[in-house]
């Protein structure tokens, strides 16, 4: 038994400051040649635990044992990523640690011993050998800034393997990948497993856990809950382990009532800075009292679509976004209006970017001051503070935002709480159109359901909700209709109640017009 264990974590505790206990007394085994999923809600300490293995953090107490040479476990102390590499541990972080202006080879060479670091030819050959062995595709001479997210991730993995990693840690690797890329990654992971490598994958996505891993270990609020064989696990049993209580996986969905045209988009076209059409002749209508889902592979024009409606994106002549006021019934053109004018008309946008703070929130300000972002123009010369303060308190209570105080900089909150603040504020403004992109990005199951509930409430109030999502299952369960974007073009609007995942998947990847052209 002992001999097939690659890494053993024993009674690991890590605290940040006095209050935050990220990991408490965690004991975990990683076997040789297995794929272990590390599952847990946001802030359950998965990444922290792995960072201690990768030498980013040092545990407050506890022991780490690593089998470095096949002769059994030895206690080690990992003080730096370099130590981790020497022990054969490599971690692929969510935010890639690559130098943009370097080629793939140069990035691998970076930090290597001087004796080989400048022998780029040899390194390129070695990279090729690794690629052939596991089925990677890496162009050694490609510069990182020319690479797609998937290519960068692949390079990170190759870099870790090149340095002799036997234990690979992947931190939410699929969050940034398309379904196809995810499949490719999983193939490679299986190849690495065959080769005897131990792989730890941190993820929220239960279907992926079931698909790829041999065993699943769960953390909850920093504490180790248990490990099960994937063969014995189901979505609901894993969810229960993760959240500690049964969560209904069904999302309530009422029939839209009394839906009226709210937003009529016609021939909407945007050109990005490279002169490529990011949005190409999009026409659709959004109704009040319904949730219109927007599906598409990331970068298919979702961001541009929402920004164009919100007045944050230049549009090409001929584009039209007509807004019908629910109270008066009069319609007005949004194109040509400023972001502020559009906002004041009741069109709210809550866009959750990858870094969560980049758009919509001010990291260094507290909840209270962030609430003010929408209302600070009230009052004469000086800002009015009482309203935002009350609102912040209300959002904090209603959405159970975990923060020491409403004046704590939101930068210090965990991702899920930041998103609650963002969505809570937009909803508090009582919009008539609520556009939200990636509202549950990186959120745990519980928080996600809170957000779905909020969106449904808005729908029932008669708000036209436009929901850009990544998870097809959620889109299918939550939306009334689903608009599918493909390469900046509108590839179809389907009824979410009758359509299938396969149909949407096909619409996301195959442009119908092209097929027609070809045929």
């Amino acid at each position, binding site marked *: 038994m002992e001999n097939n264990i690659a890494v053993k974590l024993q009674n690991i505790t890590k605290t940040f400051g006095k209050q935050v206990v990220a990991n408490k007394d965690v004991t975990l085994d990683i076997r040789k040649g297995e794929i272990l999923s590390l599952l847990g809600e946001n802030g359950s300490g998965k990444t922290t635990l792995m960072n201690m293995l990768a030498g980013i953090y040092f545990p407050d107490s506890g022991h780490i044992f690593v089998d470095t040479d096949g002769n059994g476990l030895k206690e080690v102390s990992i003080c730096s990523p370099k130590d981790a590499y020497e022990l054969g541990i490599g971690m692929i972080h969510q935010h890639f640690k690559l130098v943009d202006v370097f080629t793939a080879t140069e990035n691998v060479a970076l930090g290597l011993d001087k004796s080989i670091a400048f022998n780029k030819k040899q390194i390129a050959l070695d990279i090729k050998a690794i690629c052939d062995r596991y089925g990677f595709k890496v162009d050694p001479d490609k510069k990182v800034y020319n690479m797609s997210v998937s290519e960068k991730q692949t390079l990170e993995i190759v870099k870790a393997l090149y340095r002799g990693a036997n234990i690979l840690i992947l931190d939410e690797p699929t969050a940034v990948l398309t379904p196809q890329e995810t499949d490719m990654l999983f193939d490679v992971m299986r190849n690495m497993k065959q080769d005897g490598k131990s792989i730890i994958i941190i993820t929220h996505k239960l279907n992926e856990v079931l698909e790829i891993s041999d065993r699943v270990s769960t953390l909850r609020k920093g504490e180790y809950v248990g490990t099960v064989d994937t063969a014995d696990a189901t979505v609901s049993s894993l969810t229960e382990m993760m959240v500690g209580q049964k969560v209904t996986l069904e999302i309530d969905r009422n029939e839209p009532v009394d839906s009226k045209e709210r937003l009529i988009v016609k021939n909407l076209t945007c050109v990005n800075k490279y002169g490529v059409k990011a949005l190409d002749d999009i026409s659709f209508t959004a109704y009040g009292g319904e949730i219109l889902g927007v599906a598409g592979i990331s970068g298919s024009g979702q961001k541009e679509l929402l920004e164009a409606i919100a007045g*944050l994106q230049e549009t090409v002549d001929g584009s039209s976004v007509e807004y019908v006021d629910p109270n008066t019934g009069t319609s007005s053109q949004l194109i040509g209006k400023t972001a502020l004018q559009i906002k004041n008309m009741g069109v709210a946008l809550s866009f959750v970017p990858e870094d969560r703070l980049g758009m919509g929130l001010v990291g260094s300000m507290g909840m209270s001051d962030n609430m003010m972002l929408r209302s600070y123009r009230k009052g004469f010369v000086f800002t009015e503070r009482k309203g935002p303060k009350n609102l912040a308190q209300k959002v904090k209570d209603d959405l159970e935002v975990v923060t020491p105080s409403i004046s704590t900089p939101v930068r210090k909150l965990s991702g899920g709480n930041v998103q609650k603040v963002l969505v809570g504020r937009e909803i508090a403004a009582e919009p008539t159109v609520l556009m939200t992109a990636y509202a549950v990005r990186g959120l745990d199951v519980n928080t996600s359901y809170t957000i779905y509930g909020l969106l449904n409430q808005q729908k029932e109030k008669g708000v036209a909700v436009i929901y850009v999502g990544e998870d097809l299952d959620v889109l299918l369960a939550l939306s009334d209709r689903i608009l599918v974007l493909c390469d900046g073009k509108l590839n179809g609007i389907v009824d979410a109640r009758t359509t299938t995942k396969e149909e949407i998947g096909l619409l996301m990847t195959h442009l119908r017009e092209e097929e027609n052209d070809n045929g």
Partner: protein
Amino acid sequence: MANVAVHKREPLVRIAKRDSMPLWQSILIRVLSIVLALVVCGVIIYMLIKVNPLEVYKSMVEGAFGAFKEDYKFFNRRTWITIRDTMMLLCIAVGLAPAFKMRFWNIGAEGQILVGGIATAACMIYLKNLPPVLLFICMIGASLLAGALWSLLPAVFKAKWNTNETLFTLMMNYVAIQLTSFFVALWENPFGSNTVGIINPTGKEGWFPPILGLDYLMNVIVVMTITVGMFIYLKYSKQGYEISVVGDSENTARYAGINVKKVIIRTMLISGAICGLSGFVAVSGASHTISVNTAGGKGFTAIIVAWLAKFNTFTMILISLLLVFLDKGAIEIASKYDLNDYVASMITGIILFFILGSEFFVNYRMIFRSKEKEVQ
């Protein structure tokens, strides 16, 4: 890989971020750092010149606040000069505050001071026959306008084409210095001296009038008004809020419907205008002349002031006072003990090093191996 030292010990010291710290504790750390700096300085001074360090510190205090004779009065000439210079530095730092808060690195205060000074001097020379109140309004208006204009160019370029404001404002300084040289030549008095000389030495037109018999009380009033005003502006006004948002995230500002370009230009104009006004304080309230040395590097020193104070205008008062005190004290000991300027700079450097270093201990704590021990 087999011969890797696998059983390493825990690192001796680990560094962890602090959550927060009670105010008194952070103040204590900062005070301790200054004490420690003085001790280190003392040791070095003793090693170099074998003078009792306490004597040296006493000279420093005397340099800034007057010699301790029997009839010592705190508000003597030297103290007032120290106050005057503190106010000057404070005024510039306050001017930099809005721009810095917006993450617009205005390092062109030197130039903005000079053009403000030129405008003031021009008013004093050409409009000296106006009634004093009117003359002062002209001087204030002209210096504000000159400083604002000097910052307009980098601001517009930044807003429209996202040019690098650091280089732009820096280069504007050299233009301002050349411009000053031109005006010095134009207003040369007496002829051939290559200086402007004291402007209006007899009628004292455009000089800050003494208040309650005190020459520099006016400086204090003017600068403190701006300091308080800026504090309120940044903290409580809508425009101040916009500055914070733009400084933190331009995307968020755009999203909230804030006109980012407008805020950049407006804030930079305010910043430049107040730096221009410091030129007015320098010329009308202190030197009563204009030269290429009117700014004298204070525009750069003020950057340190603004940063150390974390853009809090009230904290800037203390920091400005400290820097001016160090400067005066250093000059005093240099002359008294027949040392050169380097010793003075060295002492200033050591003290600043410790002050900056104390910020580390305020924000982080150190955990030593095995036992959990906080070090402050």
